[in-house]
């Protein structure tokens, strides 16, 4: 996905950019409202992350202008204020969702996905491998005419494998992608989910292969 991050704090911005890139997203950063307007004029984004307090104005101004220009790009506001007291105005002004700082990136990603799904999604977010199509936005796995709705963790795990077919992912890496920092789970927990997606892929020509001692990878079984 392509993000526009509007955030005036340089340290935070660079950390967020790096973190999102780790998950394979493209991120542009704008430190001011003006820079943000320039970015929007120049490129299309799947999602905008907007900070409310900016040096050259209020993020709300951006929201209003964005909505008046009838841009469809969803906006998720990142706020450092109290979640309860801020939410009313933000959603009324046309923010699609909001998340309070500091945020968990897996939660941010989940919110992005939910927002995109609500908005009708983007066609481009489909990955094809062998005879399988993974529609991340719809949360669907398509094998031929057969459509299956995936559960959240199954989807995220499949996304990891489908983003780099053939690459071996260690259990520990998969754990990082699947579980939040609040979850205290052993490495064996990942086997449960690998088992589940194997079942999902059974009717197809794709499969998850165990690489002993290293991890798992997505392979074409033909």
């Amino acid at each position, binding site marked *: 996905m392509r993000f526009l991050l509007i955030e005036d704090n340089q340290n935070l911005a660079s950390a967020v950019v790096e973190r999102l890139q780790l998950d394979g997203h493209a991120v542009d950063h704008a430190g001011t409202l003006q820079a943000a307007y320039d970015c929007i004029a120049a490129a299309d984004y799947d999602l905008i992350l907007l900070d409310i307090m900016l040096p050259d104005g209020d993020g709300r101004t951006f929201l209003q202008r964005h909505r008046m220009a009838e841009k469809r790009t969803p906006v998720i506001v990142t706020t450092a204020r*109290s979640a309860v007291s801020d939410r009313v105005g933000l959603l009324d002004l046309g923010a699609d969702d909001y998340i309070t700082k*500091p945020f968990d990136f897996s939660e941010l990603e989940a919110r992005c996905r939910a927002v995109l799904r609500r908005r009708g999604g983007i066609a481009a977010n489909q990955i094809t491998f062998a005879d399988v199509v993974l529609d991340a936005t719809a949360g669907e796995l398509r094998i031929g005419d057969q459509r299956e709705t995936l559960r959240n963790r199954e989807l995220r795990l499949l996304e990891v494998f489908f983003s780099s077919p053939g690459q071996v992912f260690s259990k520990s*890496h998969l754990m990082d992608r699947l579980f939040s920092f609040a979850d205290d789970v052993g490495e064996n927990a990942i086997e449960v989910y690998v088992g589940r997606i194997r079942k999902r892929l059974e009717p197809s020509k794709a499969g998850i292969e165990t690489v002993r001692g290293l991890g798992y990878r997505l392979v074409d079984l033909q």
Partner: protein
Amino acid sequence: MTEARITGSIRRRLFLQLVAIAALLSVSLFFVIRGLAETAAEATQDGILAASATSIADALRSDAGAITLDLPYSALSMLGAINQDRVFYRVVVDGATLTGYDDLPSPDDAPTISESSFLTFDYRGDEVRMVSVTRAVSTEGAPANVMISVAQTRTGLAVITRRITGIATAAGVGFFLVATALSLLAARSALRPIGQMTASVTRRGPGDLRPLEIDTPTELSPFVDALNNFISRLGASLQRSEDLIVEAAHRVRTPLATVRAKAEVTHRKLNKPEHKQAMREMIRAIDESSRSAGQLLDHAMVTFRSDNLAAEDVDLVEIVRETASRLEPTAGLKDVIIRTEVPNLTPPFKGDWLLIQSALQNMLDNAIKYSPDDSLIDVSLSLNGEIRLSCKDQGRGFGTTDVDTLKSRFARGTNVDDIVGSGLGLTIAEDVARAHGGLLEIKPNDKGEGACVSLVFPL
């Protein structure tokens, strides 16, 4: 709230003072009327006595060197006109009584000619009023000095005085009663602006910090000005503390967000399990502090808004739907599904929308935190003689924790050490429930494991 120390009523004080003045005036009125009337009656008697004496004097004749008097009947009959008073007279010619009552005393200072002297004294058992006039009657020798005294008892006058006293009393009492009634009205109408002002202050909504704009009498304008000044300072102060909270939150949370993002990046890059574990613990500590900061802010906000509870129509069905959909992505991370069950028609409910939403969000947030992977959370709104907004999970429940202790600040269950929490979530929910006249019910889920937390409001 501190009650005002009440030290008497202005209206009563004003009324009592006005009544005291009225009483004083009534008594004065009584004495003035009686005094004037008595003086007038006495003057009348004196006038008649003088006329009588004069007419006697006019009847004096000098006849061959002797002074004679043919007492005119009218001189005495005019006195009888007043009443059945007795009349005494005495005519003294050069010290010798010519006619009349010998023992009628003469005035100590004989009046000079053409003057009258008046005296009041007791005579033969009655109080009498006496007038004396002196005339010089020319005889053949030297002119004789004749003093005529006419006296009359004062019974008639006493009757008149009594009647006048009655009238004066009636006038005084009447005046007093009318004045009292008027005082009551005056006290009431004088204080009406205060009443109006009180009404316009107490009628205000909780968040209404606009200055007072009412018709103000001159005397109250300093008070209204001071009140308006106070209101504007209060508004500014509230604004300042709100700004401070927002600013403080911003200052704390932005660096925390930076640290957390960097930590996540580092965590991803590290390979050794012990390093990863250390980083994970760090991230959890960050989450704990930011969560506490957030919930403290929320709790402060809830307390503030509860003290000034709004009473707008709240669509509980909409709140359930919105909150559930807002937390759905969070629940999805653990493959937890939130099911909602709401009635077709939203029950009538008045309160603060934001507070109810905040309470439900905390309840649901807890449920998600304590739910195992791949489980269900049921949020339901039901109406069975009461409004019940419940959140049931399939989590670990409360173990051996006494559930009522969970409602107090910073209290946490005995079985939740491994999960990040501030111990404020249920406190917030409890405060919100109480502010709306309801209660927070915490009990184990009736279907097997888990917790069931409900906001219960009377219908």
